[in-house]
């Protein structure tokens, strides 16, 4: 799960990034509106945490731009502006959620989970396929009712695949979703994690689509 964090305050941005990493998100952090616009143009994110008062370009303008391009990505506004007029303006500009500072870190994590879940078309708080169940809130994965222990990357990969059940995910898409900027990605890391998942969940759980990428198998 890759998230774009737009926050101009060094200390606060550092804190939010650390908090989101603790929830196993890959976090790209930009400090001004222009950088946010460019990042949203060039990369695919699962969600965006957006401050409003930003240097160079206001957060609302970044948001309007994004929606004008037809991008559906869930956006959570995180700002100190707490009047209802500000909230209305933010939601009307295309935000999916609005949180005011100072905020609760677990609440921010929960709201992001809900946003990402709904953006994937799922209303239920769990992701399921065959006899595998993933609970994003507790980050618990079970196979036929038995808990399965996964590393953070394995979990993120499984989450991505479960969020796009009918899609074929390319290797680069999966990499985008696994790593933030500046994180080293080996040439075959995705394959390594796929291999681990198959070992833990069964070889037919993930299907390789030759020349294209990966998809959930038809088991069950």
């Amino acid at each position, binding site marked *: 799960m890759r998230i774009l964090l737009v926050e*101009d*305050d*060094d*200390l*606060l941005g*550092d*804190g*939010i990034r*650390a*908090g989101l990493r*603790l929830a196993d998100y890959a976090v790209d952090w930009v*400090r001004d509106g222009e950088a946010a616009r460019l990042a949203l143009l060039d990369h695919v994110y699962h969600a965006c945490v957006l401050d409003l*008062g930003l*240097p*160079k370009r206001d957060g609302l303008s970044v948001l309007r731009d994004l929606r004008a391009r037809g991008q559906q990505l869930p956006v959570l506004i995180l700002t*100190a*502006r707490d009047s209802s007029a500000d909230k209305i303006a933010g939601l009307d500009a295309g935000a999916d959620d609005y949180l*005011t*500072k*100072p*905020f*609760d*870190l*677990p609440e921010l994590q929960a709201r992001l989970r809900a946003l990402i879940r709904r953006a994937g078309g799922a209303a239920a708080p769990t992701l399921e396929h065959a006899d595998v169940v993933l609970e994003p809130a507790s980050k618990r994965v079970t196979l036929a009712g038995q808990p399965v222990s996964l590393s953070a990357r394995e979990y993120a990969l499984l989450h991505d695949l479960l969020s796009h059940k009918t899609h074929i995910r390319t290797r680069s898409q999966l990499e985008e979703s696994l790593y933030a900027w500046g994180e080293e990605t080996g040439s075959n890391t995705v394959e390594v994690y796929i291999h681990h998942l198959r070992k833990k969940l069964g070889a037919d759980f993930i299907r390789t689509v030759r020349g294209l990428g990966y998809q959930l198998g038809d088991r069950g």
Partner: protein
Amino acid sequence: MPKSLQCARVQSLRWRLLRTICIAALLGMAFTGMLSYWQAQHEAEELMDGHLAQSARLLLALVSDNESHLADLAERLATARSDQSNLYEPPLEFQIGRADGSLLLRSEQAPSTPLSMTAGYTDVEHDGDAWRMLNMASSSGDYRVQVWQSMTLRDRAALEVAGQAVLPIALMSPLLLALIYASIRRSLKPLDDLAADVAARSPENLQPLANRNAPAEAQPLVAALNRLLFRLRDTLDNERRFTADAAHELRTPLSIVKVQAQVAQLCAGNDRQHALAQIVAGADRAARVLEQLLRLARLDPLTGLPNPGGLDLCQLLRQAVADTRERETARPLRLQLCAPSLLIEGDAELLQIVVRNLLDNALRYTPPATAITLFARQRDGETTIGVADDGPGVAEEDLPRLVERFYRGREAGAEGSGLGLAIVQRIAELHGARFEVENLAAGGFEARLRWRRLSPPPATVAVREREAIS
């Protein structure tokens, strides 16, 4: 209860007008009425005197024509006036005689006074009744006649006439008073409306009053009220903005502390140490913002310098440089001092804040090891003190807004409180100085305080000194 007494003494314009105009109108009417009354009474008396004279002449004419006619005259007159209902025809009493005073004829109730009295009108008292009497002699002088009218009857008639003359005025007066009342009420209605408009307003409604309906006399008042409302709205807007901005500024460091604390709870080792250090930094930020806010709040209500005195600008700058070097040990500094010994009149503590804020800004918004110059100079009677750097400068569109409270510039990060230059601006105002900011032609940025014509005269300026520190 002196207050309520004072309130009671405040006069209503309406009642004052009403009272004055009504008293004037009533006095006018009373005077007119009295005049009419006297006039009418006087006319009535003259009329009745004329009546007496006419009767006297008629009687004389009858006598001089033929004395024998007199025999039954009294009787005929008596029957002719049997009906006395008409007030203006009082019974006529008379005596007729010859020039020698012998009586020829007299009416039944005529007072018996001698005929020898002098000709003309006389008021006489007879048997307790007052009479008006006319003595007249015939033109030949052979006969004399004396006619009488009862004073009571005459007065009653005169009163009746005069009364009729005054009646319309008396009837008019209540109508007039009612008209006066109505017209005053009507004229003062716009003022009432104005008062109602003001009274009905909620404290949030600071829209200007509509002055279309106000009378010309009230226009200056409405205009003054509107100016006041405008200033009030301006002040309120500023206050609201300031409060909102202050809340915003305090929320950010609070958010930092909270989120980093929650991160620290969730992780361990180096990450935890890092988060804890960030908490401390966030708390420091909150303290700094609070300090600046309080400083501004203390400066705002001042009308003059709290501690004016003589001070040396060079000394002030030297101190600021020393303090900064002590504080910023981690950062490479290139500070330059360029100032002669300059004695001025001012508040040393406030000017120290100015220099510190300008220096902090220069350090914060330029890359490390940028050359920063603190300068003071006196030229053409102008004294200047300021800080210049050869950093990247400030975006032109930001320059005029730098002194706005909480404004940080579009390019700047969120580190500062956004209040430093607002504080400098306020201190400059208190010193009667101008605060100026500009991008230098050679690159870099300069912020300075400038006084026009400040004592002491240039004679006391010591030799310019230039020193480079570090």
